[in-house]
């Protein structure tokens, strides 16, 4: 049986771990709230831009823009959103496993696809598994601003425009609620499902003409889709980390309870032993 001091030490170290994990839980909770807010304040922009794009696409049958057209697929691009830091439970492993399975299923050789990872964990994973990386970005802020990721979004959209890739997918954790996140794959480009909602659309005049408008709006739309997914992913990351840290705190608490029990038992045993010794010593003297 472990000595009293050993148990005491373990209790101490577990409770200091618990302090850290519960602090991390609280930090993640507040970051999650902020990330959720950011995702919410992005919604009006997204809705508006979607509306305009949809009404242009619906208003004219003969819209002809490379970003709206499917072409034969020779190469596929995958944008993957991961975090920079670990300790976020299954957040990264889920999305990366999903990516890995997808590329294994869909492609026979490494020339057929290219990965654009956001976040350090994703980048390291791609390097380790030797997946072809087109470009990666690490060190994103917890509350990313649009300007920060502008470079990578326009890079991804340009890959498609220059026909380097013929379709572009987005893999990320969709934030459902604080306790549920879903790995999601969405097709970013070509834009084929803009007009799904069937809302009442207004018809516009275009200044100077539709083509010029599409040229400005469509890249902006595609970029904002990536940004939206990133905001969504960040909210999921913090939620996932919060959950992971909460269960770590709970586990630590359980362990401390158990250890305290065996500490008390050991103490009791020591006392009993001492009494027995004294009593037997006294009775030997009689």
């Amino acid at each position: 049986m472990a000595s009293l001091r050993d148990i005491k030490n373990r209790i101490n170290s577990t409770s200091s771990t618990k302090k850290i994990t519960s602090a991390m839980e609280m930090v993640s909770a507040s970051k999650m709230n902020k990330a959720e807010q950011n995702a919410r304040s992005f919604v009006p922009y997204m809705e508006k831009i979607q509306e305009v794009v949809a009404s242009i696409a619906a208003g004219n049958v003969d819209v002809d823009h490379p970003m709206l057209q499917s072409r034969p697929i020779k190469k596929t691009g995958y944008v993957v959103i991961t975090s920079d830091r670990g300790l976020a439970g299954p957040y990264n492993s889920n999305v990366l496993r999903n990516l890995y399975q997808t590329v294994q299923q869909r492609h026979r050789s490494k020339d057929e696809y290219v990965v654009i990872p956001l976040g350090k964990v994703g980048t390291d994973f791609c390097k380790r598994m030797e997946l072809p990386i087109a470009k990666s970005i690490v060190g994103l802020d917890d509350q990313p601003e649009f300007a920060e990721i502008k470079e990578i979004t326009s890079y991804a959209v340009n890959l498609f425009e220059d026909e380097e890739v013929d379709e572009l997918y987005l893999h990320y954790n969709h934030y459902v609620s604080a306790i549920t996140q879903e790995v999601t794959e969405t097709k970013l480009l070509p834009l084929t499902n803009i007009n799904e909602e069937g809302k009442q659309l207004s018809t516009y005049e275009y200044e100077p003409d539709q083509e010029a408008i599409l040229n400005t709006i469509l890249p902006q739309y595609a970029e904002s889709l990536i940004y939206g997914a990133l905001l969504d992913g960040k909210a999921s990351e913090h939620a996932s980390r919060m959950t992971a840290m909460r269960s770590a705190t709970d586990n630590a608490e359980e362990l401390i309870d158990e250890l305290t029990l065996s500490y008390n038992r050991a103490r009791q045993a020591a006392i009993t032993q001492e009494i027995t010794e004294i009593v037997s010593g006294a009775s030997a003297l009689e």
Partner: protein
Amino acid sequence: MTSSLTTAQGGVRLKTLNVSVVTPDGPVLDGTYEMVSCRAEGGELGILPGHIPLVAPLTISAVRLKSENNTEYVAVNGGFVEVRPDQVTILAQSAEKPSDIDVDRAQQAKERAEQRLNSKREDDVDFKRAQIALQRAINRIDIANHQ
């Protein structure tokens, strides 16, 4: 709402426009104004209440929002404007009110861009990028000085 402007109902005309400026980082401005002028890629646009629905891409410029006795400015970096008879929405990747502009930062960006323009050749990608950065910086500084 839009029906109140048709002449069929006795020529009722709206006097104001709801204007909102929206960016990916959230709404920048929301208010009621009498006139909006902005610089589209095809030229200057003045929008009064009752304008036909219109979409136009914007340049890096100032959007002027006029109400009864004053004019407000907003710096927009591209994007586009969506007009409806009673509602104007400006969607840009970034936009700032004069009070939110960091003049020092814009000044630094301006100097950086100028340096780059001097050191790169004209067909370089960075040259184009620096040109845009310079436009943005100058636009911000101009608008901040309006206040």
